[in-house]
């Protein structure tokens, strides 16, 4: 039965995707992307990926809509040109789709426990996590410890993307030099959203912290928590105007946060070397190897969370500042 739910959601997803490509109104396309994100998160949940669904929820529901809309506000809302070489592109795409579908017939069936993916390293992770790290969430264990190098790389990619956006867009005109009426006051005159939003923001922040520190026991971790906390502060900026948001978390602090995460992550790795282990080997951080692993994961998750918050907020402010 659950398989059929998944099939239904996926069918809706395909319909949404076609609608996204067909519409020439970019605002509508962004709205439909929101729906696609909800559908795909639902699917991830059905496919047993609670952590991934939580990430998609944290990123897709708020932040990506906000970013696309601020880009649309700076560019244009309508697609003007007709598609180029429609027939040719459609032929290429259809041919490639057919080849891909033909290739799927060699794939192991959905959910097959004997598929090569399931037999290679995954059983080892599932078996050894209680022994080496002793935390319930295997995803966090793999993310933080077994594949720590990968995650370090990803954190650097996020950091680089953030730096790139800041280089491209800069931070715009400094707020102090602007005449008063030019400063974006946000939705201050909309009383009801403002009151409700104010009630909500502390809870979102609290939930973000819960996701950050509960990540070893349930779905969660630095990536999700960073996105959720950034979402809370973006909500504040939308409601109270950017100036208030920037006085809470000034740009210098944001830059510091962006750099602090990778530094903390790297420092934990170097600490491993100094204490006589390998890079990113947390076992030596404490006298008890298991405790050391747990401590290491806690620290690097904190680093990840800080970077993601800093980068997403930095990007948001860079786009918002460009509108002035």
């Amino acid at each position, binding site marked *: 039965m659950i398989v*059929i739910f998944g*099939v239904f959601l*996926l069918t809706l*997803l*395909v319909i949404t*995707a076609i609608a996204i*490509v067909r519409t020439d109104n*970019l605002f509508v396309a962004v709205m439909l*992307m929101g729906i*696609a994100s909800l559908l795909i998160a639902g699917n991830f949940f059905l*496919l*047993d*990926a*609670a952590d*991934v669904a939580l*990430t998609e929820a944290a*990123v897709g529901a708020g932040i990506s809509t906000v*970013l*696309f809309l601020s*880009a649309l506000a*700076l*560019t*244009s809302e309508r*697609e003007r*040109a007709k*598609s*180029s070489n429609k027939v040719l*592109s459609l032929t290429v*795409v259809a041919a*490639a*789709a057919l080849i*891909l*579908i033909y290739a*799927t017939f060699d794939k192991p*069936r*959905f*959910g097959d426990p004997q598929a090569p*993916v399931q037999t290679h*390293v*995954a059983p080892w992770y*599932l078996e050894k996590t*209680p022994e080496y790290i002793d935390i*319930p*969430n*295997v*995803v966090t264990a*793999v*993310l933080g410890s077994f*594949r720590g190098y*990968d995650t370090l790389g*990803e954190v650097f*990619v996020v950091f680089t*993307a953030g730096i790139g*956006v800041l280089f491209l*867009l800069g931070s715009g005109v400094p707020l102090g030099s602007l005449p008063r009426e030019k400063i974006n006051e946000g939705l201050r005159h909309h009383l009801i959203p403002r009151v409700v939003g104010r009630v909500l923001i502390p809870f979102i922040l609290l939930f973000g912290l819960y996701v950050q520190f509960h990540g070893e026991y349930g779905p969660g971790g630095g*990536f*999700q928590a960073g996105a959720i906390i950034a979402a809370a502060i973006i909500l504040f900026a939308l409601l109270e105007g950017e100036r208030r948001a920037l006085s809470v978390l000034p740009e210098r602090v944001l830059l510091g946060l962006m750099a602090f995460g990778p530094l903390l992550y790297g420092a934990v790795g170097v600490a491993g070397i100094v204490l006589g282990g390998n890079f990113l080997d947390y076992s030596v951080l404490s006298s008890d190897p298991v405790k050391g692993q747990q401590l290491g994961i806690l620290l690097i998750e904190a680093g990840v969370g800080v970077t993601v918050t800093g980068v997403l907020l930095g*990007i948001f402010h860079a*786009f918002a500042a*460009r509108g002035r």
Partner: protein
Amino acid sequence: MEILGLYNYWVFAILLMIGFYAVIAKRNLVKKLIGLSLFQAAVFLLYITMGKVDGGTAPIFSGMDNTIFSNPLPQVLILTAIVVGISTTALGLGIVVRLKEEYGSIEEHEIQEIDEQ
């Protein structure tokens, strides 16, 4: 159920190609980025689908014995990829915004025309 056994992969292929179509056929740069996001979503779907095990549950121990767990590894890869995806999309949007400021347009062929002049 045999027919449904590959449905997720078919949706992956179709979704991937819908995103790809937006990237190659559309001339609006924001639309191309939206297409790229769809493309990304399709890849995420492929990975997560591969990690699913029949009768399994999410790989988070909950004190129950003899439970089958789905594969944690694809989930780790995709979890980080989602956040990386949004930051790179933001970078792309940043480039589009700068192009609009310099060329006054976000349509690919108009930018090319201005360049050729």
